[in-house]
C-alpha cells in the first residue's frame, strides 16, 4: 500500500481566492492511502519545498500529489525536491488547480469541488505509479556525414572545427556534389568552383575528417549516441593510397566513349578517369562498365603506364564498420527525369537543354571551355528561350507538386550572364510567377529585366517543335492575351529538382521518416527544422526540402551545432516514460513496429520455458528505451495488450477516468 502525501498550494491568492484550499486539504485526508495532507502559500518556494521534503522523510511517503499550477510549470521543481530526499521523482503527480480550476472558474463551491476531483484523480494515478529510472547511454564521439556536397562539407568542417572526428561518406568518386558543377552563383555571381574547392581542400587536409569517397551506407544499427554503421567501399580499381593523380592513365586509356556524368553527359571521358580537375580525393577511378580490361580481359594499358603501380584490376568491394554518435544526412538532389514532358521536345532535340546542362555549357571547365555553343552544331545561339516551372508545381502526375525554389533565381542568373557576355543574344523567359524572396534576390531579378533587357513573358509554353533547324517555342503571353511563337536556337528548361533517389534507402536504414516526395521529414517544421524525428539523425540541404546554397550552408552549420551539442555529452539521459512489451502476452504480430515513427521496436526470438523441461522459441517485440520517445502509439495498436507505456500506463489512465467519472 502506498503512503501518499498531498500538498495543496495557495499560489498566493491565485488558487486560494477561488478554491477553498484548506477544505481540499482536509477532505483529502480521508482518501484511502493518504497519510499526510497540508496546504501552504507557495509550495514552489524554498520553504514550500522544505515542507514537502520534511513530510516525505517524516511519514515515509512513497508517492506525493501536489495541487498547484500546471505540471508544465513546476513538475520538474517538485520532482527534484522529491529526489533530493530519496523519493523517486516519478512518484510525483501534479493536479493542475490553477490553470484548470482557479483561473477559469468563478464560483468557489464549484471550483473547490472540481479541485477535489482533480486531486483525487492525481491520487488515483499516483497509487499506480512505479519508480522509474532514467537510463543512460554512452556517446561515441564521432560523427558521420552522408553526402559530400556543400551541405556535407560544411557540416563536416564545422564538426571537425569543434574537435570531433567526422567521416564523410560520398557515393561518387569525389566530393563536391552539385555545387561543383555550377558555373556562377547568385546573387553575387562569384564562381562556384572558386568558393567551393577551397572548402573541399580544407576537408582533405583536416586530420579530423576522413573522406570515404566512392562508398555507400550498407547497414545501420544502434541508436542516438551509439550508431554502428557498415560502409561499402566500392571497388575503384585504383589504390587510393598510391595514385598521385598524374592523369597519365587518362591520356593512354583507349576506351574513350564513356559519357561524362560530371558534364551532364555533354562530353565523353575515358574508362579510367578523375571526375574533374579539382576532385578530392584526386584519385582515378575505373568505370567497370566501360573498361576493356575488366570487360574482356584484354588491355591493361593503364596498369602498364601507371608509375605509382596504383592500378589493381582484381579489387573487390570492401566493407568497414564504424561507430558514430550522430549522423548528418546531406544527400542532395538531382533534376527530375523529363521523359513525361514531351511537349518541350527534350528527348528529340539536342538544343533543348536543362539548366544544369546549361551550367556546364557556360562553365570554363565544361565541354565548350566556357564558350556558349549549342550542342547540336556547336554554333552560337542567337535567340535563347528559357522555360520556368518545368515539372515544378505540377499536380498532373508528370512532375512535382512543390516549387523547386531555386529556378527563378538561376534562370535570372543565366539570362543575365548570357546578355552580359553575348549582348547580341536575344533572351526570353516564360514564367508563371517570379519568386525571389531573399536578401538581394529580387533586386537581382529586376536587374536582369531593367539593366540587361531580358524579355520576361508571363505565360507558359505549350509546345516546342523543330522547323527548318529552328526550335519554335509556342506559348501564351497572358498579359497581352496573345499566343506567340518564338523561333529560338536554344531552349533551356528550368527543370524541377527532386531528392537524390538513394535517400529513400538511407531513410529506411536510419528509420528516418520521409514524405511522399522523398524529402526527409524534420522533427518540427518550425522549431526543430534540422533534426529528423529519429534521435541522433540530422538533416542538411535539399534532402529536407528545396533550398539554395546560402540556405543549405546555414542548415549544415545548424546541423553541426546540434551534433556538437550531442557529442559534447559523455552520457545521454533517456526519458524513462517509454513503452515496454510484456513478453508473455506479445504474439509477435509486428503491428507496433509498423506504427512506431522512430523505429524503436525490433523483434527478437526468445526462449520461453513451458514447464516440464520443455521450451519454446517465440518472436517477441522489444523496445529500445534509448530510441523510444514515449508517444504511446504502439500501446493502442497492440492487439494483445502486451504493450504499455511507463508513466502513462493503461491502468493509470483507466483509474484517472474512473476517478473523474465517480459521482
Amino acid at each position: 500500500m502506498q503512503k501518499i502525501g498531498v500538498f495543496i498550494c495557495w499560489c498566493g491568492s491565485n488558487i486560494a481566492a477561488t478554491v477553498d484550499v484548506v477544505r481540499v486539504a482536509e477532505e483529502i485526508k480521508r482518501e484511502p492511502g493518504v497519510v499526510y495532507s497540508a496546504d501552504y502559500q507557495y509550495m514552489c518556494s524554498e520553504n514550500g519545498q522544505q515542507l514537502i521534503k520534511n513530510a516525505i522523510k517524516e511519514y515515509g511517503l512513497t508517492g506525493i500529489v501536489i495541487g498547484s499550477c500546471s505540471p508544465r510549470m513546476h513538475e520538474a521543481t517538485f520532482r527534484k525536491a522529491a529526489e533530493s530526499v530519496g523519493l523517486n521523482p516519478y512518484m510525483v503527480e501534479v493536479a493542475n488547480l490553477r490553470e484548470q480550476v482557479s483561473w477559469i472558474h468563478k464560483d468557489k463551491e464549484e471550483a473547490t469541488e472540481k479541485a477535489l476531483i482533480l486531486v483525487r484523480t492525481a491520487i488515483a494515478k499516483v497509487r499506480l505509479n512505479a519508480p522509474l529510472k532514467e537510463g543512460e547511454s554512452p556517446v561515441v564521439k564521432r560523427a558521420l556525414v552522408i553526402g559530400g556536397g556543400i551541405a556535407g562539407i560544411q557540416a563536416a568542417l564545422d564538426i571537425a572545427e569543434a574537435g570531433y572526428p567526422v567521416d564523410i561518406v560520398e557515393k561518387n568518386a569525389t566530393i563536391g556534389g552539385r555545387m561543383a558543377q555550377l558555373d556562377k552563383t547568385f546573387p553575387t555571381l562569384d564562381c562556384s568552383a572558386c568558393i567551393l574547392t577551397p572548402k573541399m581542400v580544407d576537408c582533405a587536409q583536416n586530420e579530423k575528417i576522413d573522406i570515404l569517397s566512392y562508398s555507400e551506407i550498407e547497414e545501420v544499427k544502434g541508436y542516438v549516441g551509439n550508431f554502428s554503421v557498415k560502409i561499402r567501399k566500392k571497388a575503384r580499381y585504383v589504390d587510393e593510397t598510391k595514385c598521385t593523380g598524374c592523369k597519365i592513365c587518362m591520356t593512354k586509356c583507349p576506351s574513350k566513349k564513356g559519357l561524362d556524368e560530371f558534364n551532364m553527359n555533354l562530353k565523353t571521358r575515358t574508362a579510367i578517369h578523375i571526375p574533374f580537375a579539382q576532385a578530392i580525393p584526386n584519385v582515378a577511378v575505373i568505370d567497370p562498365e566501360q573498361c576493356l580490361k575488366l570487360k574482356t580481359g584484354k588491355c591493361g594499358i593503364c596498369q602498364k603506364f601507371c608509375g605509382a603501380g596504383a592500378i589493381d584490376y582484381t579489387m573487390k568491394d570492401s566493407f568497414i564498420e564504424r561507430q558514430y554518435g550522430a549522423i548528418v544526412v546531406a544527400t542532395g538532389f538531382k533534376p527530375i527525369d523529363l521523359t513525361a514532358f514531351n511537349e518541350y521536345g527534350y528527348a528529340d532535340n539536342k538544343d533543348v537543354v536543362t539548366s544544369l546542362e546549361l551550367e556546364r555549357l557556360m562553365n570554363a571547365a565544361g565541354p565548350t571551355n566556357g564558350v556558349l555553343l549549342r550542342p547540336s552544331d556547336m554554333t552560337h545561339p542567337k535567340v535563347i528561350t528559357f522555360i520556368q516551372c518545368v515539372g515544378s508545381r505540377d499536380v498532373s502526375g508528370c512532375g512535382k507538386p512543390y516549387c523547386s525554389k531555386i529556378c527563378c533565381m538561376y534562370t535570372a542568373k543565366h539570362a543575365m550572364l548570357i546578355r552580359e557576355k553575348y549582348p547580341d543574344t536575344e533572351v526570353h523567359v516564360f514564367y508563371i510567377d517570379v519568386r525571389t524572396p531573399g536578401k538581394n534576390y529580387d533586386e537581382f531579378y529586376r536587374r536582369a529585366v531593367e539593366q540587361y533587357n531580358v524579355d520576361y513573358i508571363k505565360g507558359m509554353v505549350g509546345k516546342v517543335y523543330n522547323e527548318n533547324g529552328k526550335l519554335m517555342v509556342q506559348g501564351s503571353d497572358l498579359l497581352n492575351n496573345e499566343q506567340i511563337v518564338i523561333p529560338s536556337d536554344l531552349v533551356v528548361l528550368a527543370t524541377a529538382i527532386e531528392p537524390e533517389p538513394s535517400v529513400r534507402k538511407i531513410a529506411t536504414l536510419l528509420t528516418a521518416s520521409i514524405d511522399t516526395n522523398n524529402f526527409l521529414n524534420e522533427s518540427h517544421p518550425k522549431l526543430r527544422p534540422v533534426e529528423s524525428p529519429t534521435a541522433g539523425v540530422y538533416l542538411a540541404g535539399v534532402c529536407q526540402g528545396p533550398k539554395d546554397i546560402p540556405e543549405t550552408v546555414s542548415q549544415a552549420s545548424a546541423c553541426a551545432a546540434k551534433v556538437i551539442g550531442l557529442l559534447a555529452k559523455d552520457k545521454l539521459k533517456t526519458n524513462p516514460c517509454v513503452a515496454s512489451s510484456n513478453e508473455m502476452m506479445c504474439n509477435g504480430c509486428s503491428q507496433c513496429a509498423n506504427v512506431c515513427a522512430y523505429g524503436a521496436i525490433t523483434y527478437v526470438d526468445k526462449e520461453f520455458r513451458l514447464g516440464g523441461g520443455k521450451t519454446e522459441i517465440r518472436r517477441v517485440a522489444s523496445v529500445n528505451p534509448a530510441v523510444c520517445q514515449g508517444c504511446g502509439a504502439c500501446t493502442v495498436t497492440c492487439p494483445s495488450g502486451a504493450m504499455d507505456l511507463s508513466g502513462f500506463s493503461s491502468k493509470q489512465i483507466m483509474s484517472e477516468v474512473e476517478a473523474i467519472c465517480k459521482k
Partner: protein
Amino acid sequence: MQEVNNFTPNIVAFCCNWCSYAGADLAGSSRLSYPANVKIIRVPCSCRVNPMFVLKAFQQGADGVILCGCHPGDCHYVTGNYYTRRRMSLLFSFLNYMGIEKERTRVEWVSAAEGAKFSEVMNDFVAKVTALGENKRLQDLRVKEE
C-alpha cells in the same frame, strides 16, 4: 426544458502534453473560462488514448468524451495524431451505431497557442452535450447504484 438546463454533464477531456494541454494552460492564464465539468487527463500524445479509455469513461457515467491533439502535421511525435484521427472516427461511428450520439464524442486539434480555441471548443462541446441530456445508453448500472 427546465430539467435540461439544470443538468450538468460530466465531460472527460484527453489532452496531449505538447499542444492541447499547453493550450488549456493558455486558456487558464488568459482567464478564458469554460464549464467546470470538463476534467482534463494529460496524455503524452493523443494517440496514447486507447478506445478502451473512451468506453471506460462512458461505462463509468461520463456524458461526453473529447480528445484534443496537435494540428495535423504538427504532432510532436510526427504521426501520432493521424492514428488518433483514424482510430477515433472508427470508434465514434461505432458508438453512434450503439446509440451514443455523435455529439457526445469529438476530436479537436488545439495548438499550444490556441487558448481561445480551447475555451471555445469546450464551451461548445459542453453546450451540445447538455442539450442531449444524460448519457444512458452505455453505462455500467452498478455505477449508478453507488
